[in-house]
């Protein structure tokens, strides 16, 4: 791997080519990337382009996500101020390159589900374009190394899937940010130096999920990040998020990442799981191992691995607060008996389940229902995994949590079905995938009974807890705003500014929707959440300009 250097606020930083700016800066011990309007420091939180908290200025261009931007030799990177300067001498961009794509099948997302759909649809004879936000395909589960090296069997399995998708003849385009989804369907995206205008015959949405955080005092501090972010740092860039690390929340990802980081050389001070130990619920544990013996075995092996490395794994501990002290963070946990304990670390990783990235599906009008078992919306689908909107399919965790093996099976089903709908193949031969899918779903149901991803009720938190990271709105301000005009999330948004920042309410929105449901006693539905709106992710004015120029040429 090539060695490069760039500057951060004028000081030289050494990095490896292919490393993200976020990874390179964290490896260099820098964890404060931007300053908020309220003067607070922020750093990497989600690690996958969702939270917009790792923004930096790159070569004079403000608000670039360090986690999604590759480090390039000679780059000048600066701390992002909340109010970047405007350049009066700026010029309108040259008429940009633009590509108009009209595939039979457009796959959105290059993870387990998206790649499986790509291969299936292509093998059926359909012309397939796959758009992926990350620099390399693989998604979150099959996260690939930036340098192409293989860490373990999971990455190797992913590498095979990526290779199969590449050699299938589908066009896979990476580093693509989709910002527009309209009826038609018309999909608008920004890629490196070119606007993409996609008018596909069918769409398979496979946008995955992002970590559900634990909203507590201090969850915005630099060094506190999602478990997924820590995993990306390690699996993609071989960068440890800290030397001494606490991992907390609930679910199997925490165990896996704790073990990976421990093997990678980090000291894991604590793994705190909110749910009671699986050994206390032998029946639930047994159900897991019946429905998914391989995965259940994998879970047990992870626990053994952690024990062998003397990593303390404690059940029944819930994160209560994170505080900053000179030289690090201190995380306070509440035990089920009401007692507390405090652990010091320089990174705190959190995952309490997942939120589906269903924005594109909701924008296109796909019908959703609320699933109280996991606390998020699920997309309604037919046997062929077509949504309520004709020609729009959905697979994997973006429809509601299901896990990577299920996403692969769903991808194959939707790929074949979307190809058939666009005139390629007969969509038959899905029986074994359907059987596999039923098995994976039974395993998932059993698995989540071993964990506790129930979110902390907001009104049990201290009033000064930040709820909306972007707009720095506290729980107290949210509750006060609710009291003024109760009953509707949109009204609460306008009264308090929650959800009005660049992450577009991806963390505070679901929490506030649950709060309103608790207060009103009304069941959550699709309309309980923020109305879906373009842009799906923030998009530069110049990128919209490029797309407009290209579309005018297209018509």
């Amino acid at each position: 791997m090539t060695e490069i250097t760039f500057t951060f606020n004028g000081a030289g930083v050494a990095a490896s080519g292919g490393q993200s700016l976020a990874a390179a800066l964290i490896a260099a011990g820098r964890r404060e990337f931007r300053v908020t309007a309220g003067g607070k420091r922020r750093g990497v939180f989600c690690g996958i382009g969702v939270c917009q908290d790792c923004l930096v200025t790159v070569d004079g261009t403000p608000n670039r996500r360090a986690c999604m931007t590759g480090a390039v030799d000679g780059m000048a990177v600066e701390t992002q101020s909340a109010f970047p300067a405007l350049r009066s001498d700026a010029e309108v961009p040259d008429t940009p390159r633009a590509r108009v794509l009209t595939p039979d099948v457009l796959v959105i997302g290059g993870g387990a589900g998206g790649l499986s759909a790509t291969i299936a649809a292509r093998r059926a004879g359909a012309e397939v374009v796959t758009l992926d936000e990350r620099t390399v395909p693989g998604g979150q589960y099959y996260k690939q190394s930036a340098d192409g090296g293989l860490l373990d069997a999971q990455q190797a399995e992913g590498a095979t899937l990526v290779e199969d998708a590449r050699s299938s003849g589908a066009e896979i385009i990476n580093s693509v940010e989709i910002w527009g989804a309209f009826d038609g369907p018309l999909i608008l995206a920004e890629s490196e130096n070119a606007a993409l205008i996609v008018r596909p015959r069918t769409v398979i949405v496979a946008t995955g999920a992002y970590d559900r955080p634990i909203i507590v005092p201090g969850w915005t501090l630099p060094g506190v990040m999602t478990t997924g972010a820590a995993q990306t740092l390690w699996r993609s860039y071989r960068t440890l998020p800290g030397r001494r690390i606490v991992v907390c929340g609930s679910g199997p990802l925490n165990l896996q990442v704790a073990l990976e980081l421990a093997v990678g050389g980090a000291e894991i001070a604590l793994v705190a799981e909110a749910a009671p130990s699986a050994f206390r619920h032998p029946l639930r544990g047994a159900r897991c191992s019946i429905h998914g013996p391989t995965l259940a075995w994998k879970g047990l092996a992870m626990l053994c691995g952690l024990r062998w490395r003397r990593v303390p794994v404690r059940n029944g501990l819930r994160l209560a607060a994170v505080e900053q002290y000179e030289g690090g963070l201190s995380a306070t946990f509440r035990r089920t008996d009401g007692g507390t304990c405090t652990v010091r670390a320089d990174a705190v990783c959190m995952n309490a389940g997942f939120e589906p990235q269903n924005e594109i599906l909701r924008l296109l009008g796909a019908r959703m229902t609320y699933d109280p078992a996991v606390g998020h919306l699920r997309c309604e689908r037919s046997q062929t995994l077509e949504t309520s909107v004709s020609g729009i399919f959905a697979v994997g965790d973006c429809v509601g949590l299901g896990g990577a093996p299920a996403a692969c099976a769903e991808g194959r089903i939707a790929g074949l079905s979307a190809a058939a709908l666009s005139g390629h193949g007969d969509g038959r031969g899905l029986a074994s995938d359907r059987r596999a899918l039923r098995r994976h779903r039974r395993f998932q149901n059993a698995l989540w009974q071993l964990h506790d991803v129930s979110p902390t009720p907001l009104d049990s938190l201290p009033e000064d807890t930040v709820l909306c990271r972007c707009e720095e709105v506290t729980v107290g301000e949210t509750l006060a705003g609710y009291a003024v005009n109760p009953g509707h999330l949109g009204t609460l948004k306008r009264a308090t500014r929650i959800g009005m920042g660049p992450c577009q309410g991806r963390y505070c929105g679901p929490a506030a929707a649950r709060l309103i449901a608790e207060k009103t006693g009304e069941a959550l539905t699709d309309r309980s959440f923020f109305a879906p709106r373009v842009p799906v992710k923030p998009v530069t004015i110049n990128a919209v300009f490029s797309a407009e120029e290209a579309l005018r040429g297209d018509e």
Partner: protein
Amino acid sequence: MTSDLLVIGGGIVGQIAALELAGTGARVTLVDAAHNAGSTTNAGSLHVQMQSRFIRLYPEHAPNLERALPYYKQAAECWDTLEAGLGPMHLVRKGGLMLAESSGQMAFLEEKSRREEAKGLDVALLDRAELDRIAPWIGPWIVGAELCRDEGSLNPLLVNRLLAKACADLGVICISDRIDGLTVTADRVSARGLQGRYRASEAVVAAAWGSGALVRALGVDIPTAPEPLHMNITEACEQKIDHLVQHAERSLTLKQFGTGQIVIGGGWSAHDHGVDTVPGVRAGSLLGNVALAARLAPAIGTLRIIRTWAGMNTTADGTSIVGRLPGAERVIMAVPGDAGYTLAPLVAQMAASIVLGRDPPADPAPCSPARFAA
């Protein structure tokens, strides 16, 4: 429920009207349909000069708009008073610029400014050198502009919060319900909602584009058409844009909030999804509106759009509708003409004055709903 006075519509006009009425000690009930109230989604431009957009789209109503210009100027001044009384609204009145790209457009602005000056507006024509001094970030092909010093902007989210608190402090009872019928008897008005019935001695109708349908059964046909309009907002940047910016020929408004965010709009259309659902965004409006802003102000090109939404403008005939409803005098209309947010304080105070029998802040006669009575 029964109160002294009823206000139908909890947008900017209804809230200010409720505040004026409750200030006299009257028991006031304000009923709002809640989910899609027009002005709670307003973007906060204070328009005074004639918008080129209106002249282009509704040429038959342009003379009405021109006659109403003094109201816009007075309304903009009302906002100063309102902010002084209620608290900071990020109100900025450094003027509005209407940009011209050609000598033809400059000639249009010259003629327009002459007519506006005759109506008492504080306007001036600027050449490029003068423009460079006050707005150097404007793209190089803009040849000049009309400056209207009365214009400005404010942050409607702050205004909403301040008004909600002021109403609560004065004991205004705010209810979420959709009124779908009004009956008037010799001694009272009765409003039928989906959840209840509201009675009062008089009612102010401040329901913007919903007003026409509400009073049609009372025998007056007021053409209040909803006009869902597209808006965009960027993330924050340094405070650099002092003016409300428009274009002489194309649909654009551009301004910077006190939060540092730039708001881009100007009358691009959105999908009307009916009364109970928020309007939808059209691809063409987002693309066209933002691309136009990029051409006129290349300096903002690297900023990101983080949100779009649509709000409802109300068009009737270009003039506000304020006064007692002919044949149903216990009903007082309070519907501003185009750019209703700007006019809101004046329209609300005029309507409240009529209810309370006070001297109105401006002559409501030209705004009387009698012009729509058959």
